[in-house]
């Protein structure tokens, strides 16, 4: 389909000589060479499945790697960026690896950090695109162009974690499933395994990346490669002597598995497809399909539409103004709410304080009363005691008088009277007590 011809009013015209715009593709390519290319690969797979080794093998180099532990509490992603150069092509390659994928006891949320990472890159691009002063052609594109999903070489079928994860990712990224450590599966088992995997993907509605068939120059090789998915790969950066050459291989007591031998594994096919044939298409699909979908969903979520319910076109400005109005109203509402809340709290506090004051006051009154009562009681006691004292004093005085009188009147009878008076006095005193 010639996209240009679909425009109305453009008639084909033949040229009577060489004009020179056939150099346009070269002009474009030269500009791209000056700018450089970006390519971002995400590798998802269990710890130890061979992600880093495969990347090293794919790009013929030693990226900085370190072994991850199996005890990560959550799935994390680690991104590293490298500047590679081959002849005059500069490639900024970012390799993102999952850390701790498949290690947790509960894997229900395992896919979430991956989805979040992919979305964050889209978000970052969208924000740049919507800026007023933007610089898109200088922007370091971090959106994931290809996702290599590493399938465990169990030989049976996909794990449910695999299906769940791929299903969550298939509308966000180009998924290329690979069977890792394929040298542990025999050829016949591998064939059955591949068929099982593909049928499971189809029956679960997982959309993996299809190598494009619309360009005649690559349609043939892409069709053939589509039939070899998922690629069964083996990675190795160590070299072993085979015949009179040093080749990348894994040496076992029973033989040597050669990474670049197409009879041994699909590594060469992966490299061919990922880099040599379809890198540009992977980038294009990411931008025109996955990113557009993200953008559309995000803007619709925020309430932007192209047409209103009656299908009349809505001007962006209208929608924006409405949204802005809504936003400002929301701000105002929240402000009012906070203010009201503040006033309420102040009132409450005030009431609380008043209550406390009242209580204090009443307690004070109570204590005062108590004190007064006690004082009165004590006063009463004091008075009674004084009364007693005075009556006792009077009686003593009377007794002493009597004593004195009896002494002067009768000597003999004094002794008895004394005893009698003493006894009396004693009795009087003891009855007082």
């Amino acid at each position, binding site marked *: 389909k010639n*996209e240009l011809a679909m*425009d109305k009013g453009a*008639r084909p*015209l*033949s*040229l009577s000589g060489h*004009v*020179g*715009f*056939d*150099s*346009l*593709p070269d002009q*474009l*390519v030269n*500009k*791209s060479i000056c700018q450089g290319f970006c390519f971002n690969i995400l590798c998802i797979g269990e710890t130890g499945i061979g992600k880093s080794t495969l990347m090293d093998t*794919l*790009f*013929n180099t030693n*990226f900085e790697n370190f072994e991850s532990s199996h005890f990560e509490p959550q799935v994390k992603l680690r991104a*590293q*960026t*490298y*500047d*590679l*150069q*081959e002849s005059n*092509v500069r490639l*900024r390659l970012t390799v993102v690896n999952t850390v701790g994928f498949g290690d947790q006891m509960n894997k229900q949320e395992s896919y979430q950090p991956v989805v979040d990472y992919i*979305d*964050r*890159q889209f*978000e*970052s691009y969208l*924000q740049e695109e*919507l*800026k*007023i002063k933007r610089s898109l052609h200088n922007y370091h594109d*971090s959106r994931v162009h290809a996702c290599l999903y590493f399938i465990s070489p169990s030989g049976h079928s996909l794990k449910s974690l695999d299906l769940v994860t791929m299903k969550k990712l298939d509308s966000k990224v180009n998924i290329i499933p690979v069977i890792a450590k394929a040298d542990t599966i025999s050829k016949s088992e591998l064939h059955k395994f591949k068929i099982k995997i593909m049928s499971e993907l189809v029956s679960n509605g997982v959309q993996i990346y299809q190598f494009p068939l619309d*360009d005649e*120059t690559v349609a043939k090789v892409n069709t053939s490669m589509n039939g070899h998915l998922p690629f069964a790969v083996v990675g190795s950066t160590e070299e072993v002597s085979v015949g009179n050459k040093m080749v990348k291989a894994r040496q076992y007591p029973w033989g040597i598995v050669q990474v670049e031998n197409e009879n041994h594994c699909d590594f060469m096919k992966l*490299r061919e497809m990922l*880099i*040599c*044939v*379809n*890198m*540009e298409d992977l980038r294009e699909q990411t931008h025109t399909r996955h990113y*557009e979908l993200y953008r*559309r969903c995000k803007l619709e979520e*925020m309430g932007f*539409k*192209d047409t209103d319910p009656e299908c009349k076109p809505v001007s962006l*400005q209208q929608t*924006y103004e409405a*949204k*802005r109005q809504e*936003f400002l109203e929301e*701000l105002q509402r929240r402000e009012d709410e906070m203010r009201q809340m503040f006033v309420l709290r102040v009132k409450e506090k005030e009431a609380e304080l008043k209550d406390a004051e009242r209580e204090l006051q009443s307690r004070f009154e109570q204590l005062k009363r108590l004190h007064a009562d006690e004082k009165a009681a004590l006063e009463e006691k004091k008075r009674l005691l004084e009364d007693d004292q005075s009556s006792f004093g009077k009686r003593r005085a009377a007794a002493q008088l009597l004593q004195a009188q009896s002494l002067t009147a009768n000597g003999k009878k004094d002794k008895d009277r004394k005893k009698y008076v003493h006894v009396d006095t004693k009795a009087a005193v003891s009855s007082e007590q």
Partner: protein
Amino acid sequence: SSIHCIRGTDLFGYIGIEAVLDQMRCKTMKAGFEFNIMVVGQSGLGKSTLVNTLFKSKVSRKSCAPDYEEKISKTVKLHSVSHLIEEKGVKMKLTVIDTPGFGDQINNDNCWEPIVKYVNEQYEKYLREELHINRKRRIPDTRVHCCIYFIPATGHRLRPIDVEFMKRLGKIVSIVPVIAKADTLTIEERQEFKERIRQDLAANGIHVYPQREYDEDPEERILNNRIRENIPFAVVGTDKEHQVNGNKVLGRKTKWGIIEVENVAHCEFANLRDLLIRSHLQDLKDVTHNIHYETYRVRRLNESNLNFSELGLSAVPLENGTADKCESDSHL
């Protein structure tokens, strides 16, 4: 994340990364290219002829419209006509925008206004499409990539209308000034005229293509400096062929000789063609897209108060760990 530099020597062998260049070439050839060129100048300066000569076919409206009348229109009207041309598998949709009536009135005040309006309308169209929720896979590009301004070969200096037009349009579109019907000037007269024009342009602060401030690297600067030293190109156009020394050449036959259009000793048509088509066509489009369009967009978004960041677009923290601080936080 840190950026490590692994040069070609660190790669233990060929990978095939450079194949991406061919992939890109294939894709762009399949998609095709669009190019929109505007010609401005008063009647009789040979605008249609020049455009036809540039593209070696009858691309101007004059040549295609069967009922076209050679009438001086009372106002400046803009007409555009599109053609699909192909060369060695490269397909191009070429649109030529004509501006009949420009500079032809007795009173030419504000004759640039309809042109300014047209240029801005194309930017507006593109902007609207770009802001749609459901966007087309490929936004149709009607923006003016290049405006050829025709200066009559008076031999003196720029006229007020030339200065006014280029001053205003130079801010929003890439202008390529040419001296029209240059076969009335001798080589010396031509050089002097060009020098005076360059002085007038500088004195009036007019920046024509290739604009000095958009040179991206020293190599480009050197290349563009050479071009800047030679503009405006003195051109002659024709679609007639004659025999010269046993070869068929494009030329104008006069009693005193044949002016060979594509002979650089005779006129600078070939230089113009090389600049516009063979070397800088993509650059013209890039400057229009990355600079002129962006300038328009900034102005429009500011005018309409459309600041998406103000709405707290993202609730997701950005990758480098800093959360997007939107105005709402500080407002509250």
